[in-house]
């Protein structure tokens, strides 16, 4: 199997290199052909791997590709660990990537950077595969940073736009803050386990559960708590959890296909994947789990609110991504890792779909993203309309859709959790259901229904997108609607992740749920009676009333709740805080150290100061050398007298 896994990883890389380095030679056609071929190869082999695991007898693969280096007895290697968790991620990543590749042919049709774009998204696929297939922390970190690099390149793809090149730098730096924590977490684990290998680390986890480290004063902290929280800080950066979520909405400056691929379906789920992968460590620290669940719950609810006041179609979807990532994180904190990863998978399909549909609307309207200038697009763009509806229903968890199964299971699991903070989390995820439904259908109604608010000229040119755009929409709509039915039982309640995800018995909320689980249909019936459905339904109705039935009301509400609206419109003033306080303070500190420390004290006082002092003293001493003989004679006599006095005494 090693050759297959190598092919999975390397074919997108080779394709990226060809499209990137020889873009001129291969041309547009060549660039998209070679990259699509590369990703399709990966996708087919990934599906084959997953299929053989589910229906064949393919077991877990854990092997080294090559040794990066070995220092002090610690082996640092590049290698693959392919178990069922990895296989699932491989399929999700390569499938969404393939869809996005095809879609890009239509979306980037007129762009001068066509080849470059294909090269980047293929490179991203390579990096993401390296991340999910790693069998050690070194490679994980490589993939982790490499996806960050490609994200940087792609957000800034349109490098002439000042907003884009600000957003990509911001994304990279905020991610680097996460990586900062991540690296410290890796260092902590290495110190106590003496290995960067997952297997060795997990095997040693029980043994170091009692280990403590000293950080501040004499207080000792549990090593695993510190390590897990540090690792999770990395996840907060990549998976955009509060307060490191600020980069994700701005990343919408990039072209829409990458918003779908990177900033919705795959890269941002790396943090969720990583925590699930590290479940043997997180399970040993309830403090860390509480930290995870509280951060996740806060993200789930409070970024959802922000989605309510956005007018840019992509930003609504972006905030919804943040909120959904919060849901996944809550599941991780509740030890329902499988539910988190399951939601990750369904979300990848329907969120990629929603983004690509948004992109279809944007090209249909000639790069208009403001929802206030849309409306009534249903009749112009039927395929986009119906696939958007599918995505929206999945997002709000409409019974029977993929989102329903994953989200309902997730919420139930959180309800069963007893970890500290789970009460708060349960409230947040429930309230979040209403908010999700409200912003989703606000967007849906504003875009596709109601009055046509675009100007006359634009209306004439509205058109449905070409087939390369429509096909991925349809192909993504199918799993968004249906994939829950066959998968919920096996993935969540039937030991699918046995061996890949570890849950300590007292935390195992999914096992509790599983006791009552009798097939997908039973789950559906059970869901119909839950308050979750009511909340979602209420959200849709409110959205319908506010944006279709009585469209003047939102304005009135906005005026009544001026303060609240401003708070949301300014994203809780977090960006302002970061830019005006943190960034400015850093620059001021830099200026202070430079002008004050380097220029004034070290150079001014010490270096040039001593040079000046030498000059000054020399200037003074020079005066003694007057050149008059009687001065020298006088000095000699005085000196002689002093010496004689000294000796006689």
């Amino acid at each position, binding site marked *: 199997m090693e050759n297959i896994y190598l092919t999975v990883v390397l074919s997108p890389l080779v394709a990226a290199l060809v499209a990137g380095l020889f873009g001129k030679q291969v041309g547009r056609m060549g660039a998209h052909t070679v990259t699509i071929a590369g990703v399709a190869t990966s996708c087919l082999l990934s599906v084959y791997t997953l299929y053989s695991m589910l229906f064949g007898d393919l077991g877990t693969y854990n092997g080294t590709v*090559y*040794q*990066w*280096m*070995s*220092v*002090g*007895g*610690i082996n640092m290697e590049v290698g693959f660990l392919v178990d069922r968790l990895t296989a699932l991620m491989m399929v999700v990543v390569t499938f969404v990537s393939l869809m996005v590749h095809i879609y890009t042919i239509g979306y980037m049709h007129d762009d001068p950077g066509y080849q470059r774009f294909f090269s980047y998204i293929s490179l991203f696929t390579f990096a993401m595969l390296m991340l999910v297939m790693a069998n050690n922390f*070194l490679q994980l*970190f*490589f993939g982790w*940073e*490499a996806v960050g*690099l490609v994200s*940087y*390149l792609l957000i*800034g793809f349109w*490098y*002439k736009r*000042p907003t884009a*090149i*600000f957003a990509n*730098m911001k994304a*990279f*730096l905020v991610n*680097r*803050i996460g*990586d*900062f924590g991540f*690296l*410290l977490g*890796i*260092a*902590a684990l*290495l*110190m106590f386990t*003496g290995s960067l290998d997952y297997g060795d680390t997990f095997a040693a986890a029980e043994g170091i559960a009692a*280990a*403590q*480290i*000293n*950080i501040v004063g004499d207080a000792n902290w549990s090593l695993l708590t510190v390590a897990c929280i540090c690792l999770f800080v990395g996840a907060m950066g990549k998976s955009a959890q509060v307060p490191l979520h600020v980069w994700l909405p701005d990343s919408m400056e990039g072209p829409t296909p990458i918003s779908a691929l990177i900033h919705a379906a795959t890269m941002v789920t790396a943090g969720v994947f990583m925590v699930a992968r590290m479940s043997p460590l997180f399970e040993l620290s309830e403090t860390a789990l509480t930290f995870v669940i509280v951060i996740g719950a806060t993200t789930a609810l409070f970024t959802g609110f922000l989605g309510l006041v956005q007018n840019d179609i992509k930003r609504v979807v972006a905030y919804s991504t943040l909120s959904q990532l919060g849901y996944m994180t809550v599941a991780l904190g509740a030890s329902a890792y499988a539910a988190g990863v399951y939601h990750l998978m369904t979300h990848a399909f329907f969120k990629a779909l929603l983004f690509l549909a948004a992109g279809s609307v944007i090209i249909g309207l000639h790069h208009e993203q403001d929802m206030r200038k849309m409306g009534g697009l249903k009749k112009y763009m039927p395929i986009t309309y119906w696939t958007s509806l599918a995505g929206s229903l999945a997002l709000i968890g409409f019974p029977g859709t993929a989102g329903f199964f994953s989200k309902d299971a997730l919420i139930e699991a959180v309800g069963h959790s007893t970890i500290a903070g789970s009460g708060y989390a349960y409230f947040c995820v429930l309230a979040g259901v209403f908010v999700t439904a409200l912003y989703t259908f606000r967007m849906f109604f504003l875009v596709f229904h109601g009055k046509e608010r675009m100007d006359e000229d634009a209306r004439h040119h509205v058109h449905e997108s070409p087939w390369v755009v429509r096909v991925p929409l349809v192909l993504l709509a199918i799993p968004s609607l249906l994939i829950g039915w066959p998968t919920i039982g096996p993935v969540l309640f039937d030991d699918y992740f046995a061996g890949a995800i570890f849950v300590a018995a007292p935390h195992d909320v999914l096992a509790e749920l599983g006791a009552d689980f009798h097939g997908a249909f039973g789950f559906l019936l059970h869901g119909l009676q839950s308050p979750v459905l009511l909340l979602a339904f209420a959200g849709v109705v409110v959205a319908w009333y506010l944006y279709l039935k009585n469209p003047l009301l939102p304005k009135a509400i906005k005026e009544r709740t001026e303060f609240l609206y401003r708070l949301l419109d300014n994203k809780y003033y977090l960006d302002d805080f970061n830019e005006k306080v943190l960034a400015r303070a*850093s*620059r001021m*500190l*830099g*200026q202070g*150290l*430079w002008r004050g*420390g*380097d220029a004034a004290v*070290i*150079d001014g006082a*010490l*270096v040039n100061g001593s*040079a000046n002092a030498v000059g000054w003293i020399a200037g003074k001493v020079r005066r003694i050398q007057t050149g008059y003989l009687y001065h020298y004679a006088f000095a000699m006599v005085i000196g002689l007298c002093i010496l004689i006095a000294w000796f006689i005494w």
Partner: protein
Amino acid sequence: MGLLSILIGLPVVGGLLVLAVGSRTAARLDRWLALAISLVTFVLSLALYTGFNFGTADMQFVERVAWIPAFNIEYYLGVDGISTPLILLSTFLTPMIIVAGWEVIKKHPAQYMAAFLILEGLMIGVFAALDAMLFYVFWEAMLIPMFIIIGVWGGERRVYATVKFFLYTFLGSVLMLVALVYLYLQSGSFSILDFHLLPLPSSAQLWIFLAFLVAFAVKVPMWPVHTWLPDAHVEAPTGGSVVLAAVLLKMGGYGFVRFSLPIAPDASAVLDGFMIALSLIAVVYIGFVALVQTDMKKLIAYSSIAHMGFVTLGFFLVWAILRNTSLADGMSGVQMGVTGAMVQMISHGLISGAMFLCVGVLYDRMHSRQIADYGGVVNTMPKFAALMVFFSMANAGLPGTSGFVGEFLVILASYQANFWYAFLAATTLVLGAAYTLWMVKRVVFGDIANDHVKDLQDMNRREGLLLLILAASVLALGLYPAPLIEMMEPTLVNLITHVTQSKL
């Protein structure tokens, strides 16, 4: 004559030859001659790698003849896993510098090439010398070509910069000379290897350590004796900046591992907290200072100081890790620290060299180093922009590039000494990315800022080739550092065993 003597002698003699030929020949014979000599030196130096015995910590390619018998001074050369990579770095970069100055240097081009060739020979001499006096001669002689390079081909404030550079480094060297003479009086020999074995009382070790510290800290440069570097870089011509950042700074780091640590291990163990503090100040303080620079060369110079902080940090973590009682076995951490520091030296040589070449490419076209004068370079120089972004990412320590390897190892090691060491060292992930990418954003990206940028021509073949070779080596070292590590390992293990045994 041994290989090392040839490697030292060839560029020096060749440099004199280039001087003799001069630049008035029609075919510009001088620069072809200079290139040929530097290439031959490089090819010959590869024999150091191919003929290197990876299994031993002993000195290899040893040459030893009496030089001044009255004082027991010898012509004593040899290399081990520490010095060989540094020599290879020097021979690898010199042809690059010559090509970089190919048609750019208008004033006295033959002398320019000759200065770099002579400098190369002296640098190899510094790394290969095993006799302290021989080392000192090379060490001081090296100042002369460097002084000339900045002073003759430098920018407007070159006189201030050269004097500052010279006084700073010379002051340090004088104290080193005192220490070397003291060691000679104690041991009766100038052999550095004899110094290593010389037992010394703690007070003597302390004074020796301090004397060396001044010499090496200035070279590295460590905070607070770093202020000569930004000035020197800003005024130096491109080639001067490259050699300064890539090789001359490494002399400081080399000095620590060749002299300070093995000769005064007990003093090092006592003063390690102080050294670690200075290193961390270099990383954090200088990181913030780099953030607000408006001159590209100054920014990269400050970034060099911050990166060199990892070198001194890695070397002086040894005792702090071994003192940490919660570790079962600190040796792997110690080895990671020291190895990381060494890798950081090599990697920084490549990356900083490349960054200065990038600035040189821009400077040759625009005659400005000010960030504010640029903007949107990618529009007119796409190939160059791709490479500059690549090197910037390497400078920010992205995994897969050589910049990652050393920092990664040193941060992992520093965690084993103290959480806060690692915490402060790891701030480079954010600070390093911030100052580098902010510069990239303002210089490379954006719409075309002004008419000068609009008229820029992309790299020519000569420039492209240089940067591509460097990019390939940065990538190679980042993806497969094992050969370099294996070359250094026996020597470093031996060094660690040596320095962790008390001499008292």
